[in-house]
């Protein structure tokens, strides 16, 4: 009796899901949001093309694009190195390495980005640079000067390095221990096993969140404006403050960021789809 009821209900459920899947119309899965956003972007572009105030804002702001992109790529590259080092460091057998890595990650993640940028740019770098330059001069006969742009970029990299450390650690730990065991039992060293067996597989789990971090860094380069770096946001601020055309200034700033981030998400989506397709049927 009970068995009969269970069978009946499970058959109903099976039919139910089958019916929904089979009859799902095209407009149910169609990406309407994409059409909407494309429409908004087209409307924004039209405004910029046709209205003089918007066109002027565009002219004044768009030169900041290269600084934004350069800062993004630099911060991302440094963060990748930091993240990989700290991520693997947390899995190290060496107690010192493990704790240094963990300290870095926990410490940095606990401080908001804006105060950290000020701390690094206005306190840490000035207070250490005299001493470091003295040493550099004495030993190598060179000195350095870190621009505000570089100070902020390095701060961004420090912060995202800590986030990425967690991504790398998670990716490495997602690989079943049997993979390392197989590598080690063939005589590969720990390092060889990590490089040839674990990391290549972990990349699959790591690339999508890294892509998200790239987009997040791109947006957070707007914080460089607090140090007066002439990237997109700072140029928007200056334009708005000098002309009182806040609407036009921030409209253009938002438009540029949207184009960049949406374009990158589309690319990322394609990349992820390709990776999951390769993966089908894998054990």
């Amino acid at each position: 009796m009970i068995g009969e009821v269970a069978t009946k209900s499970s058959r109903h459920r099976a039919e139910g899901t089958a019916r929904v899947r089979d009859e799902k119309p095209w407009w149910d899965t169609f990406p309407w949001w994409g059409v909407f956003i494309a429409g908004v972007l087209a409307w924004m572009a039209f405004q910029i093309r046709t209205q003089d105030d918007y066109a002027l804002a565009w002219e004044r702001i768009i030169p900041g694009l290269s600084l934004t992109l350069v800062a993004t790529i630099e911060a991302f590259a440094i963060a990748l190195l930091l993240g990989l080092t700290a991520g693997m460091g947390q899995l190290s057998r060496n107690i010192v390495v493990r704790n240094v890595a963990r300290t870095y990650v926990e410490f940095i993640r606990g401080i908001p980005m804006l105060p950290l940028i000020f701390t690094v740019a206005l306190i840490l770098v000035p207070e250490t640079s005299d001493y470091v330059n003295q040493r550099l001069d004495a030993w190598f006969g060179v000195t350095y000067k870190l621009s505000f742009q570089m100070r902020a970029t390095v701060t961004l990299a420090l912060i995202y390095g800590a986030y990425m450390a967690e991504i790398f650690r998670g990716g490495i730990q997602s690989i079943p221990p049997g993979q390392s065991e197989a590598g080690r039992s063939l005589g590969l060293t720990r390092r060889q096993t990590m490089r040839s067996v674990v990391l290549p597989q972990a990349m699959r789990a790591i690339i999508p969140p890294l892509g998200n971090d790239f987009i997040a860094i791109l947006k957070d380069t707007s914080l460089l404006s607090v140090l007066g770096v002439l990237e997109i946001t700072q140029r928007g601020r200056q334009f708005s403050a000098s002309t009182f055309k806040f609407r036009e200034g921030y409209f253009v700033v938002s438009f540029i960021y949207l184009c960049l981030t949406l374009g990158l998400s589309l690319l990322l989506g394609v990349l992820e789809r390709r990776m999951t397709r390769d993966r089908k049927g894998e054990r």
Partner: protein
Amino acid sequence: MATHPESGTTSMISLRGVSKTFDKTIHAVVDVDLEIAEGEVVVIVGPSGSGKSTVLRCINLLEVPTEGYVTVDGFELLDPKTDIDHVRAEVGMVFQQFNLFPHLTVIQNITLAQRKVRGRSRSEAVEVAMGQLTRVGIPEKADAYPRQLSGGQQQRVAIARSLAMDPKVMLFDEPTSALDPEMVKEVLDVMLELAAGGMTMVVVTHEMGFAKAAADRLVFIDEGVIVEIGLPEEVFSNPKHDRTRAFFDKILY
């Protein structure tokens, strides 16, 4: 107590007083002594959770014994001066879950360690790999990815991958337990041929047919202790201990 038919001669594998305790309270292996001669095939059986896999994994130090000594081919594994990677290259291991590298093709799976550990050239490694693939009967799968193979084929590739290193010892950790029934034979056939060829083998398995056909000695382990050890027919047909008898009564039919 483990007795060796040829005691006095040097063993390929020697476990003396080996114990493994997990989390200070779980005694997986208790005071195991086992001498295995070159060319000998030893099959380890026992109930699940009895510690037989742990014993096997102590032989290439995937598990580090809490107590005792392990010697393989004259190398004292727990001596800090011993290069464990060097010893592992001489000890092939085949896992229940195959553990092929999914991001590499079959041929890449088999050449990776040959090139990195043995320092062979690409062409030499590929030649050895193709030889081993032919030996396990699937040379045509060289460029396939593991996911494209059946379980039996994957396990045969895993065996070929180990054999390509020219190991002195092969360890098998329940090599057929994850296979569909119709694929068990193709893997056992490869193992039988290997045993006939004189390879030193330690095999943890539930395949009593393989034990009867290939084992020089059968070891019965329960609760981490070697309960009985001897010729397979003797242990099967005339177990000396109640625990052994109870075990075989349940699985032999």
